[in-house]
């Protein structure tokens, strides 16, 4: 390989060949960084920098997930996890499989009802609170601090606090409702099967509305002020301004917040587990999974349920991302 052939400036001599020529002809440049150009060195360095995080995430995320999916195809049990047999889709479609289990379908129903109710309430309330927060006012700092209180309180703690407030005999809620004459007899908020899921929704709304409000607020603050000013100059009524200007402009942000909350609500565990334990009437899919997996020791069966939940959420994420992309493109156009 002659150097002259490679030297033809700007010609098609590939970088690899150039580098080889350099290695051979310029021994004084014995630098480890010689392979590839500076940009290539940078990319290699980027991989090294990302590697620790990617490895950790693979080890604590991807690998356990794959193992869970694998376990779902076996009859593994917690007492002796090494000793299991491959049983195909038995855990899903077998005679005693997931799809034939009333408890599972009850858990699915509970989860969907919980998600639907809490996310819609949180969206409405979050929007209201975000509009409150978007006002320049002396109350603003106080409002924001108050907003973050329910959000920062551990879910377990809020579940306990509300359980106590909703206590059927000594709870402050029953006490005041009785005193006001709204109810005739104390309600068993967390024990009554008719009520318990709604109590759980109530606590979730209390706890998660702030998160929703913050995300919507961020979207609100990106609406350019001159839009409002133009509308005011045109004399558009306030309700119309909200409906025709604010809402369309914050819609992408609102949707993102709703998707995040929905995916979060679908995997609800702490709240339900602490407030009503493993009660069948309120059991969510996550609670069902843990009960099968840990309490009953059925690793295979529980993993099958977990896999179902995972694929449900994955499917929903993909659909949501597609929808959001469309909305974003419309908003951008």
């Amino acid at each position, binding site marked *: 390989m002659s150097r002259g052939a490679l*030297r*033809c*400036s700007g010609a098609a001599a590939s970088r690899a060949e150039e580098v080889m020529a350099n290695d051979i002809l310029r021994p004084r440049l014995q630098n480890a960084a010689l392979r590839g150009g500076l940009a290539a060195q940078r990319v290699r360095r980027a991989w090294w920098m990302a590697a620790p995080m990617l490895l950790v995430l693979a080890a604590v995320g991807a690998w356990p997930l794959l193992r869970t999916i694998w376990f779902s195809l076996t009859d593994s049990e917690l007492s002796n996890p090494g000793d299991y047999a491959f049983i195909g889709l038995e855990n899903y479609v077998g005679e005693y499989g997931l799809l034939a289990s009333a408890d599972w379908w009850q858990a699915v129903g509970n989860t969907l009802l919980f998600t639907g109710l809490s996310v819609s309430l949180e969206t409405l309330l979050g929007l209201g609170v975000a509009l409150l927060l978007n006002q320049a006012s002396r109350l603003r700092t106080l409002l924001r601090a108050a907003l973050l209180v329910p959000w920062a309180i551990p879910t377990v703690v809020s579940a306990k606090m509300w359980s106590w407030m909703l206590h059927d005999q000594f709870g402050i809620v029953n006490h005041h409702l009785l005193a006001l004459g709204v109810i005739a007899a104390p309600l068993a908020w967390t024990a009554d099967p008719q009520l318990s899921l709604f109590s759980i929704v109530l606590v979730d709304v209390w706890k998660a509305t702030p998160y929703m409000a913050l995300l919507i607020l961020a979207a609100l603050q990106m609406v350019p002020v001159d839009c409002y000013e133009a509308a005011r100059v045109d004399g558009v009524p306030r309700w119309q301004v909200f409906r025709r200007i604010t809402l369309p402009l914050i819609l992408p942000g609102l949707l993102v917040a709703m998707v995040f909350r929905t995916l979060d609500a679908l995997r609800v565990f702490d709240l339900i587990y602490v407030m009503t334990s493993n009660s069948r009437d309120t059991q969510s899919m996550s609670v069902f999974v843990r009960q099968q997996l840990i309490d009953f020791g059925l690793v295979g069966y529980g993993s099958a349920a977990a896999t179902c939940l995972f694929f449900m959420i994955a499917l929903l994420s993909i659909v949501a991302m597609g929808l959001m992309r469309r909305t974003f493109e419309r908003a951008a156009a």
Partner: protein
Amino acid sequence: MSRIELRGISKRFGDTPVLNDIDLSIAPGEFCVFVGPSGCGKSTLLRLLAGLEDPSAGEIEIDGLLVNHLPPAKRNVAMVFQSYALYPHMSVHQNMAFGLQHRKLPAAEIERRIADAVRILQLDGLLQRRPKELSGGQRQRVAIARAIVRQPKVFLFDEPLSNLDAALRVQTRLEIARLHRALGSASMVYVTHDQVEAMTLADRIVLLQPLAGRSDVPSVAQAGAPLALYHHPANRFVAGFIGSPAMNFVDATVKALGDGRVLVDANGMCCAAQLSPQGLAVGEPVTLGIRPEHVLLGEGAQRARVSHVEHLGEVSHVYLELPGISTPLLAKSYHEKIALGELLPFDLPAQAMHLFRADGVAQARGNAAGRSVEAVDG
């Protein structure tokens, strides 16, 4: 000594060529300015030298050492950025010391170098300040000081004055020129879009032209001493870029060829140009060029009507309407009493004329003729 050699350098971003086929040699101690309109790739060329970008083809040698694959820090160059790029969380002192500490220099040596830089750039009393507590001019000087302490063989400046206001720009320009003399042996490569900076600072100007997506156009329009580019532009692009206000261009055809003389016809106006007739043919379309400062007003055989006058104080810009030519001919005049609509006699001296062929290449001028143009100047 630190000679920079660029051989066959090309750079493309994706499919878009940014720099084509650059061969350039920068002598030790030389002050070399890359100038050109925006999009000509001058900053990219500087970044290739710095090692912040890879060339797509070609070789870069600094001091006889091929540096294509050396990271910036190993090239013995220092760079002053347009935005200064001072570390915002470090004091002025730390900003200067940071790089030196990483080269494991002894502390005493670091302090000595910083003290030198502080003296040269008058940074006394600022050492403990953070960049945001400094004025624009002070930040600029700190950025230069940070380059000086590294004692590089080559200084690279990327439009260092563009963030300063006009008065400070002139002052800092002088300071950089002084610095270049003081540092002696180090080469400086300086990027600017401002031809005044280029003309005043450069030992040599490298004028780059935008490629507009073509890969068959050379990037370097002309390289040479500032006055060489002014007096002997190699092509129409150079002629139009250097000089302010820009050169007048008039379409014309060759009428007759003589010994060291070319006669052209510009829409009925007949002019002589003291240029080599080599390669020209009678009837060939050409472009006539003459700088506004070379148009003689108040004498000569031609006459034209004044369509507009701009009084700048020291000089006036007079726009002359020529029959059949859409753009008026611009002339500089030191007379203030020129009235709009006046019919003025003017002359286009043959020794100040430039002629460009259809492909933009300038018609060469004999040595004797070149000198006579400079004489017109004086």
